């Protein structure tokens, strides 16, 4: 890491190389409850550049899933706005792909039919998307599994199917909500490597939610550190480690420095996995 990079990073406003794909401006969300309003998100401000991988990191209850739901158009913001490719996100849109915590596959559809679900829903050409699906399944190492059913696959394989499904309609942005949280630690590492490989090949713009600091540092170009009650962005930490990053990058000084810097935000709060 160069010293100039460090200075730019410390300012916390590393301008993305190209125009932002996503711009979130002064976004807030509050809920009315029986005990009065609860502020889930407060004054969230960030941008994500074309082809950038951003991790949203925070403990449970910091509002990161709420933020993802707003970005996916499933919830509306109370104040501020989220803009995707120049238009405000006001509801579900067709240029977003979402990967949820669980694979959320339809057991009555084959792997291939699950993958082309977005194309079916949005009435895009089925034949063309079938071909694309086969290519993407091959990319994630699931060639030959297209006619299997989800319940015949392992958890890691199911989550790969979900990733392919989120990519099939060529979305402008890929939202991932703790996609590997339900997997065992070993599978999770493999999936992180796999995701990095896919991302290097496809260069999608990714917003990746996680509560694991090493996972965020390993995958992201920038880590948006969120603190809870109300959900705020405490710091934006750039990760300047060359790609492709092998798993043992986790033992390097640069990696450790980023992890320590992020963890400092939580040492007073606790409740975060390392």
């Amino acid at each position, binding site marked *: 890491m160069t010293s100039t990079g460090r200075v730019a990073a410390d300012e916390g406003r590393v301008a993305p190389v190209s125009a932002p794909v996503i711009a979130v401006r002064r976004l807030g969300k509050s809920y009315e409850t029986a005990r009065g309003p609860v502020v889930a998100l407060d004054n969230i401000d960030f941008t994500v550049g074309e082809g950038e991988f951003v991790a949203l990191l925070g403990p449970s209850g910091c509002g990161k899933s709420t933020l993802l739901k707003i970005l996916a158009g499933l919830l509306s913001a109370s104040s501020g706005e989220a803009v995707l490719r120049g238009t405000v996100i006001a509801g579900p849109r067709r240029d977003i792909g979402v990967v949820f915590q669980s694979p*959320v596959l339809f057991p009555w559809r084959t792997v291939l039919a699950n993958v082309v679900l977005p194309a079916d829903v949005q009435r895009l050409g089925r034949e063309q998307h079938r071909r694309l699906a086969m290519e993407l399944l091959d990319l994630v190492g699931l060639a030959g599994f297209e006619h299997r059913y989800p319940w015949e696959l392992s958890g890691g394989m199911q989550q790969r199917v979900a990733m392919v499904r989120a990519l099939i309609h060529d979305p402008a942005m890929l939202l991932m909500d703790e996609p590997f949280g339900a997997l065992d630690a070993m599978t999770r590492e493999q999936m992180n490597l796999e995701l990095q490989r896919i991302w290097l090949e496809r260069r999608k713009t990714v917003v990746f939610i996680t509560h694991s600091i090493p996972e965020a540092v390993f995958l992201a170009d920038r880590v948006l550190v969120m603190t809870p009650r109300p959900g705020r962005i405490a710091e934006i930490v750039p990760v300047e480690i060359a790609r492709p990053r092998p798993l043992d990058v986790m033992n390097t000084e640069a990696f450790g420095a980023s992890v320590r810097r992020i963890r400092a935000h939580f040492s007073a709060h606790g409740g975060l996995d390392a």
Partner: protein
Amino acid sequence: MTVSRKSLLRLCLIVASLLVWEAAVRLFAVPVFILPAPSSIAMALYRGTVSSLYIDNLGVTLVETVLGFAAGTSLAFILGVAVALSRRTEYYLYPYIVMFQSLPKVALAPLIIVWFGLGLTSKVINAALIAFFPLMVNTIVGLRSADEDRINLMRSLDASEWQIFWMLRLPSALPFIMAGLQVAMIFSLIGAIVAEFVGATSGLGMLIQSLNFNADIAGVFSILIILSVLGLILNQIISVVRRRVLFWDPSEKAAADVTKGGMP
């Protein structure tokens, strides 16, 4: 013990119990109008079958049952969908649903005979009425059971409510709907028989009544055998359909036969 030896033993037990029954009836000279011997039942079954009396009446009951099943379950499905998808429909239909659900539907059979006569119509209506509730309730519960994450996924893809219904809610409801259909099938048979008891000119229920009246208890037993075979076949048909439709449902392999509890 191997499977073939087990099934052989089971068969031996059945034969032995029939022999004991036969011997007991002969030994203690039980009057035939109280408990007929298996041989007399077999004779009655044979005579009724070759004279086409049983076949004709079986045909009548089968038509009533199948038509009642089709009418009752179609209506139940349509109303179930309407209630599950629209809170307003639910609000207005709710009092009727609650009232009818707690009513033993067989108690309506005399009224239905008065209103619709001794012919086919009253039997079909009675069968339909009894088949209706298990399917409607299961359709409502099934359609509302769709997984929240899957609904969110469909919404995030900008799916219409119509697409969410066809691509997600309906398939998710199928395990419940198939279970409802299985119960409804047997319930339709009960509905048809009960209506025949109350007033009919043909059908197996009517035949039981008239044989009973003539103290032909062996005849009554032979009809009971036909009815239980009929129930078994109808149930098997739905079971086969169910297994084919729900090949993806993990609970299907372990699913208990819903009709095992017997008939009301």
